[in-house]
């Protein structure tokens, strides 16, 4: 398998994985629909059949035998259901089989993604599917009659064409290896080799010999053939694949109506197949390029590189236009050109950002499956409502969002939503509700997960926190919000509330950390017996932030502008010290801690007198405090760069530095981690 596997080019493999993953998502959606409506429609059956057929074809082309065998068996099952109009179906059984198939394929795809061999054993699942098919066949003997009638019709139709009843009609497209030369003669040789197996052949280009461009056309567009054969798909495929210098074979079985395509029809078909959702056709040309001509798919790495480059350009631009050597020069036309450059760069930046934005819908829809599985497992009846699916977020952020969301949904369902009995006793609807919503609030996206379960129990949380020594002040002084945020502390989640689902050794602290990693924050509101709402606020994008430059000694730090509340000079009478001799400052009747940045980073600064420097008040989710710096230098947009790898050995994580940025004059500035500093120094 490995050798064949390697024969395929990377883009083709990527396309295979991409399309298969997409089909899996589609399939999952169909199934969840079937389950929630408790019925299966003809369209559903057709669609599942079509998806299986497609994956069977493409996986067999990629030589992933286990996937193609499994999908083949499911295809057979749905073929039978479709052809015999079997309505008395055990939907639970059926959807379990399909779900297991989805899981199997997804696992194999993830192996392929990691560069591993997709070596899962499909055997037992395949035989389960076959057993079910056989039981259907026993229960539906009438089906046979319908089927044979159907076949009679086909036979009549076919006999007009002079083709026997076992014939299958195919359309194939063959690509030869680059540089194999004389493609037209390659095609001719292939036709000769296939001669004894196929009949009623037509092909494009029609004329292989007199058409001077035939070779070139085949090299570029492939050699399309339609024909009839008594051989099955696998056999025909391998006959074509074994042709000399054959690089790629796209083969599809088609139904009689669609058979015999003229040149123009094939072309039109290629474009419109999807739109017409041609159910009659069992389309299997999964490798044809994206049918929607207006969309291309781009490797994320390339997008990251592009984003990076745009960032560099923005920085370089200010390095040029704000170059110290230009000071005091009369530069009228230079400045005009610089302004124009700035404008264009801004546009470029906006466009690149917008390309990276993708809708959150698919991430949300994955949660349906989790709710379904957990409902089954826990015997609950919970509905998941989704809104705001079209909200767009940076691709990188979406990628890190899946896990935390999954965890939160699991938590809601496991600990939030009560059992059916409990709900009825409370006078609630037996059916629990979890709503997942996303909304764009300008610079941020707020995602909320709301359940109508039992809500958080303030007293229990306090009890537990004190047992684990997590309380830092007396419970009576804590607001509900403060109490609820205790569950995000490392060490809060203990074994007792870990079940198969919400547990897995991951606590809410991990959820919080992954959200914070993408610059977001998380908040809880809860009302006993009413439910819990968890809101996650995440930035639209990570790459570029507005920053305020402040200086400490010779260093320049960047404070994310969104965290800054105000800045001011301290007045002597406002300065106080708390019991442990920590500096505080009184502002409008409240005391705020002062954090001296030169102490935090061990810097030498001329400005150590708090009256001389400047105080910048920043806020985090939990608290507000004042940073003490020498002076404010001004605002600048910066491109956030991760801290270089060689520095990571120095435990930079909790050092109060979130990243770094290059300034207009090519200096490096560290971006302050406002909540990190709060955690460490207050």
């Amino acid at each position, binding site marked *: 398998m490995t050798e064949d596997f390697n024969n395929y080019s990377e883009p083709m493999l990527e396309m295979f994985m991409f399309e298969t993953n997409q089909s899996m998502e589609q399939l999952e959606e169909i199934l969840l629909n079937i389950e929630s409506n408790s019925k299966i429609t003809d369209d559903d059956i057709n669609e599942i059949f079509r998806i299986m057929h497609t994956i069977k074809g493409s996986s067999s082309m990629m030589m992933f035998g286990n996937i193609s065998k499994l999908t083949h068996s499911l295809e057979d099952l749905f073929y039978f259901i479709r052809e015999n109009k079997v309505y008395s179906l055990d939907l639970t059984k059926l959807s379990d089989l399909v779900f297991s198939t989805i899981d199997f394929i997804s696992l194999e795809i993830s192996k392929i993604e990691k560069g591993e061999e997709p070596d899962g054993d499909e055997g037992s699942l395949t035989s389960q599917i076959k057993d079910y098919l056989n039981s259907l066949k026993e229960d539906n003997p009438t089906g046979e009659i319908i089927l044979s009638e159907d076949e009679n019709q086909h036979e009549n139709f076919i006999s007009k064409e002079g083709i026997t009843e076992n014939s299958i009609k195919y359309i194939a497209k063959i690509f030869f*290896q680059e*540089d*194999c*030369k*004389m493609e*037209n*003669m390659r095609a*001719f*040789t292939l036709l*000769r080799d296939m001669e004894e197996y196929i009949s009623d052949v037509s092909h494009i280009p029609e004329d292989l*010999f007199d058409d001077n461009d035939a070779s070139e056309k085949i090299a570029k567009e492939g050699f399309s053939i339609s024909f009839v054969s008594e051989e099955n798909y696998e056999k025909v495929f391998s006959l074509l694949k*074994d*042709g*000399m*210098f054959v690089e790629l074979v796209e083969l599809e079985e088609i139904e009689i109506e669609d058979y015999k395509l003229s040149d123009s029809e094939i072309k039109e078909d290629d474009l419109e197949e999807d739109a017409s959702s041609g159910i009659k056709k069992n389309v299997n040309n999964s490798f044809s390029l994206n049918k929607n001509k207006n969309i291309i798919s781009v490797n994320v790495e390339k997008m990251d590189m592009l984003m990076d480059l745009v960032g560099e350009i923005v920085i370089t631009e200010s390095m040029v236009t704000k170059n110290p050597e230009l000071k005091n020069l009369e530069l009228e036309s230079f400045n005009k050109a610089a302004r124009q450059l700035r404008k264009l760069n801004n546009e470029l930046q906006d466009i690149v950002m917008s390309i990276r934005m993708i809708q959150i819908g698919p991430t949300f829809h994955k949660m349906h499956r989790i709710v379904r599985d957990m409902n089954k497992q826990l015997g609950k009846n919970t509905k998941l409502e989704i809104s705001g699916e079209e909200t767009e977020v940076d691709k990188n952020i979406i990628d890190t969002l899946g896990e935390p969301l999954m965890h939160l949904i699991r938590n809601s369902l496991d600990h939030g939503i009560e059992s059916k009995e409990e709900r009825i006793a409370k006078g609630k609807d037996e059916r629990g509700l979890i709503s997942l919503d996303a909304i764009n609030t300008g610079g941020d996206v707020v995602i909320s997960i709301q359940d109508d379960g039992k809500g958080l129990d303030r007293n229990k949380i306090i009890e537990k926190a004190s047992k684990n020594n997590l309380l830092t002040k007396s419970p009576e002084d804590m607001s509900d919000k403060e109490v609820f945020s205790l569950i995000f502390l490392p060490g809060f989640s203990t074994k007792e509330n870990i079940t198969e689902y919400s547990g897995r050794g991951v606590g809410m602290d991990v959820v919080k950390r992954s959200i914070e990693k993408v610059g977001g924050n998380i908040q809880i509101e809860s009302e006993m017996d009413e439910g819990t709402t968890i809101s996650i606020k995440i930035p639209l994008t990570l790459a570029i932030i507005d920053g305020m430059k402040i200086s400490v000694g010779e260093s320049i730090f960047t404070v994310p502008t969104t965290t800054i509340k105000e800045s001011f000079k301290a007045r002597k009478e406002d300065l106080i010290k708390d019991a442990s001799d920590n500096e505080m400052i009184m502002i409008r009747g409240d005391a705020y801690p002062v954090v001296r940045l030169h102490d935090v980073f061990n810097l030498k600064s001329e400005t150590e007198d708090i009256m001389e420097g400047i105080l910048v008040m920043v806020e985090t989710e939990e608290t507000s405090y004042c940073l003490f710096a020498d002076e404010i230098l001004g605002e600048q947009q910066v491109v956030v760069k991760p801290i270089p790898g060689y520095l990571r050995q120095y435990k930079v994580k909790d050092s109060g530095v979130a990243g770094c940025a290059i300034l207009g004059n090519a200096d490096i500035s560290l971006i302050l981690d406002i909540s990190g500093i709060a955690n460490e120094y207050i």
Partner: protein
Amino acid sequence: MKKVLIVDDAAFMRHTIKAMLEKNGFEIVGEAENGTIGVERYRELSPDIVTMDITMPEKDGIEALKDIRKIDSNAKVLMVSAMGQEKLVKNSIIAGAKGFIVKPFKEDKLVEALSKL
């Protein structure tokens, strides 16, 4: 090991093909510089595969191919063609050549062609 007979009027081509094939585990059992000798050698050596140049003096590749197929209708003959000889390639295919390769070719193409025969 597959036994190969090389039929080509150019010593350079015979040499090149031989070198490429020997490197890839084929055994060159004989060489011939024209069609007539090629057919004789085929009869003597019964090789598994023949590489057959098309344009040769005395008896050309297509005639030699036809003669060889009279000896063994299943003979595996790979035609070696030059650019622009499409008509001749077509005739060879009709005459029963299993495949063809076009000069200039690289080692991997030759080896692949032979292994597909």
